[in-house]
């Protein structure tokens, strides 16, 4: 039922969903065999354990178990090269509302992803994150 493009978009959205729900281990598991690079910040993780550790450093978790964020993923362009390789480009805009922190936009950026199809399913191969616009991160970053 799902096209390759749909399956890949679901993967991208599932990562955002897991992180917003505070399910960092589930989010990181999507990058089991993948690297994640933050452009211009000298941050690269390889594999799930490193990414999960990074998420615990980058996203402060509140008593409800979540980072109190909403990652809106838009402008998703998926390019399926063949039956084993694909890439995608997308924008994300992150909103946050937390105790003593009114609802506001805190980060906007772009993401470039590469995917590989293994055993009939698409997986992340690599992700490069470009954070373009930042607002008040004082309620988000663990080390603000």
């Amino acid at each position, binding site marked *: *039922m799902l096209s390759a493009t749909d399956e890949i978009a*679901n993967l991208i959205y599932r990562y955002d969903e897991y992180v917003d729900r505070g399910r960092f281990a589930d989010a990181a598991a999507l990058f089991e065999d993948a690297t994640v690079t933050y452009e211009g910040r000298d941050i690269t993780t390889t594999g799930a354990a490193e990414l999960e550790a990074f998420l615990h450093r980058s996203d402060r978790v509140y008593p409800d178990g979540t980072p*109190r964020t*909403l990652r809106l993923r838009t402008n998703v362009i998926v390019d399926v090269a063949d039956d084993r390789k694909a890439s995608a480009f997308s924008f994300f805009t992150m909103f946050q509302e937390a105790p003593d922190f009114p*609802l506001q936009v805190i980060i906007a950026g772009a993401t470039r992803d590469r995917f590989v199809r293994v055993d009939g399913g698409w997986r992340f191969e690599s992700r490069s994150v470009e954070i373009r616009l930042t607002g008040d991160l004082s309620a988000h970053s663990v080390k603000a």
Partner: protein
Amino acid sequence: MSDTRSDAEQIRDLLAAYCWHMDRGEFDALGALFAHASMGDGTTPDAPALRGADQVAALYRDRCILYDGAPRTKHVCTNAIVEFDDDSHATSRSCFLVEQQLDDFPLQPIVGGRYHDRFERVDGAWRFTERRFFVDLVGDVSRHQRAALR
């Protein structure tokens, strides 16, 4: 040209149609999307859900503040994870963020959260069978809703 939109695209169109009718204050058309569906707050699953077009339209008419017939909002619905149980049953989980602006109310995000939806295909057309909403991030909804969200 024939309509070649995929099933997933047709389901995303339903998500978009909700936002379109909502932001235009078209509550009868919004209700009609849920003619065969229930709608309720996912955080209180035991609370009675609304069922059918009339109940849904009546709730929105009762809750939403209109300015010259429209709520002056933009409902942005993104991140739709669409999955199929079989060729006539599907689910989606998506995010929403509502923005609002009035003469004395600067453009700002006022509420954000998630929709967990179920769909069925009948006579070749997809339709909602269930919507559960989760309000996660709350801003100033005093100009949009007559009742407090939290």
